[in-house]
């Protein structure tokens, strides 16, 4: 997003929370939190300059475990709340964060619309392909045949493809990382933060409690870094990105899959921000008497 605040010198200490995490040992959320924190530190964004808006679910507890501005809201609604906050105070570096059920089940509709608007925020989807907090039901990204309490014979739906949806909906930045590789993921998040426009970052993650098959080793086997496999991959080309997103070879491509720097963001086209970039919350509420009188006059 367009970062207007002065960059700060921050360290891991600044983000240390007083709270004890309730995530299971080995949960992928630890890696995601670490990647996010590293990205913020490397971008010079202090805890008071960021706003982490989450929904509900294991991964949505992240704002509780990091010392930074946050808002833990409703299942599926995080992105839309984040967009409201961003439009009222664009100075805050606004990040929406939530799991796959949250972001791609209930929240998919909102996400698609905010992508096509090119809202200047970052959306991180923590994708472990299962519902954790409600104790192991299949999710929108679960593979066909995945057996859970709500799919005892195996899921019969095809999984949501977040990358293809993001491309089709008009996200101007699409990246994918992995909780088991925080350094790589931090780099993607950092680039997402620096991207002007809607940045979608999917982070594949492990759930040692309810998705035992897809362990760290499993992901290492079934994923690859796009640039390592194809040094000529051009992330500015939507057709290449689509090909990658739709390539169904059982492996997850990782890295920056798509980037478009040529679309205006939503906020730069909002009439109230055309003449002044001052956040509406910082403008005086006073109404000039003459302006007020003219408003009245239009009804006489």
């Amino acid at each position, binding site marked *: 997003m367009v970062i207007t605040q002065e960059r700060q010198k921050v360290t891991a200490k600044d983000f240390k929370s007083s709270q004890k995490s309730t995530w299971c040992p080995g949960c992928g959320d630890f890696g995601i939190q670490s990647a996010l924190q590293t990205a913020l530190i490397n971008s010079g964004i202090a805890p*008071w300059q960021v706003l982490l808006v989450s929904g509900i679910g294991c991964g949505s507890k992240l704002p509780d475990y990091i010392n930074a501005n946050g808002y833990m809201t409703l299942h599926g609604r995080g992105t839309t709340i984040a967009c409201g906050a961003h439009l009222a105070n664009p100075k805050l570096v606004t990040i929406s964060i939530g799991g796959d059920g949250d972001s791609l089940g209930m929240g998919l509709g909102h996400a698609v619309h905010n992508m096509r608007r090119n809202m200047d925020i970052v959306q991180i989807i923590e994708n472990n392909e299962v519902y954790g907090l409600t104790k192991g039901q299949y999710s929108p990204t679960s593979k066909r045949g995945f057996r859970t309490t709500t799919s005892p014979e195996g899921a019969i739906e095809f999984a949501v493809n977040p990358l293809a949806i993001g491309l089709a909906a008009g996200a101007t930045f699409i990246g994918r990382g992995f909780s088991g590789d925080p350094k790589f993921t931090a780099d993607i998040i950092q680039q997402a933060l620096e991207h002007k426009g809607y940045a979608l970052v999917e982070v594949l993650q492990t759930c040692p409690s309810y998705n035992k098959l897809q362990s760290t080793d499993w992901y290492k086997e079934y994923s690859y870094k796009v640039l390592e496999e194809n040094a000529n991959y051009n992330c500015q080309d939507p057709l290449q990105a689509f090909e990658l997103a739709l390539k169904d070879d059982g492996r997850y491509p990782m890295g920056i899959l798509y980037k478009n720097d040529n679309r205006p963001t939503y906020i730069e086209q909002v009439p109230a921000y055309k003449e002044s970039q001052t956040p509406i919350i910082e403008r005086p509420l006073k109404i000039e008497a003459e302006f007020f009188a003219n408003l009245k006059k239009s009804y006489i």
Partner: protein
Amino acid sequence: MTQKKRISIKIAGAQGQGAGSGGQGLSKVLKRAGYHVFGVFDFMSLIKGGHSFYQISFSNEELHANTEKFHILLCFDPQNTEETVGDIETLNEGGLFFVDDSIALKPEITVALEKVGAKLCPIPMIKLGFEIGGNRIMGNTVGLGAIVGTLGIPFDFLDQVVQQNFAKKSKEIAASNSAVAQAGYDYGLKNFGDSFKFEMPSPDKEKTAEKMLINGNEAIAFGSYAGGCRFVSAYPMTPGTSVFEWFTKNNAKLGVVTKHTEDEIAAICMAIGAGQVGARAMTSTSGGGFCLMVEALGLAGMTEVPVVIVNAQRGGPSTGLPTRTEQSDLLFAINASHGEFPRIVLTPGTIEQCYEAGYRAHNLAAKYQTPVIILTDLLLSEEIRDTDPNFYQLPQIDLGKMVSVAELDAMEEPYLRYKFTEDGVSPRALYGHPKSVYAPSTDEHDETGHITEDATNRNKMMEKRMQKHESCINDIKAPEFFGSDNADLTLIVWGSTYGATREAIEIFNADEKNKEKINLLHYSEVWPFPLEATKSALKKVKLSVCLEQNYTAQFARLLRSEADYNVDHKINKYDGRQITPEEIIREVKKIFAQSLVSSAK
């Protein structure tokens, strides 16, 4: 007290034929000519076709509702025979029926006119529209001109409004409409001026010319803006849309961020997001959209975010009667969302109260850090009445308990977003300062905002939030009487039914034998329930009649649950049409007759 002199006009047509805009224009002409006016558009949920009508009453005294009978009917769609006959039946004996002279009328229409004793007034609307304006649709202006001419109101008033309305398009269009209006005016004056036998109220330009003609939704939007609202997100839904459109029309000039969202869930969520970072934010909708907002209402309650929601009610349940009026969301608004949290519900009944509700909602939301619902309905959102511009003043803006940047700079102890306080309101610091870093949760949380399931904390936090419900009772307006203090019968009303009830009282009490017999008690703010004020008001009530536009007598139930008071009688209407003063009088007469019988026993 004598009866008000009033003249009533109905302009009917298929949707898209201009009955609505014609009615609004004519209201403006009448107001500028020196009359008090009241106007409402009655329309259907479709774009073209069907049958709609605009009703206007004008008088030398203030008006608060239309009555059932009309003196003039201007009809653009006599092809809709059944509806036209229905409209003719609402004409007074001696009323005038204006219709285009080139359209053949079905015999049913002639029969209906004869039965009522109304006069057929054919006007070459289409012909003059074509000949002078070069356009069939300008026939509407001919019709409006004919009414003004027939009434003998100076042409200038009509001309000014026509010029003003069309000036935005082009000078040529304005000039040709003006010429067309003149032709219609001359035709009406010449041919029907003598046919209009009703006594006209005497105009007083001093009194009305400078008054504002503003509808309820515009007044809410205007009041909200005056009260500091700078963020509005909404999804279109009749009749709530025009609150939002007031802002979108002018948003660059007003400095307000507006967002047409993908649905009502996003509408309230964006407003809450904006509210959470410090904007005075609102959304507007109707009952169906409000249903979708209910989960997020709890989010605002739990995390103590100021947000304002306008629910302009319409006929329910579900899609119900999309363009009809109803008051059936009262208990829903008071109870919506799971769990318990404080909220404020305002139920303005007049245009002026809509303006007040606009700024009061934002002040109360900020002061108590909780959602405020403005509950209106289709009638109030659409009705226009001449109101005094001096009434509309810039209000005091209450930001509530805010922690300033300077205070944060000097703060030594950690900032607690949900600090326990006596009144339940915790001083609010906004994001963006190194000392006000916090991350509240919709989970139960402690004073910092962190998640906790601790039982002691839960009790204290619940009590803190609910204390705000107690704290704000004193800010809730007491119900107000209209009419004599010593009436035999009191109509208890809330919201938009104030207008028709007030008019009914004036008409009923004007009859010498009914002098001061009935009055009304109106609630413009209902939640938290103003119990003490209710108790003292009810002491003055002899025979109570709760009047509402819903089936289950929701306000009567509220009086029973909150004030342990049982109303003596109920009047409930749920056909989607605004109750008329005549209907109220008929019901009141029945109740008087009943109570005579029971007292005789």
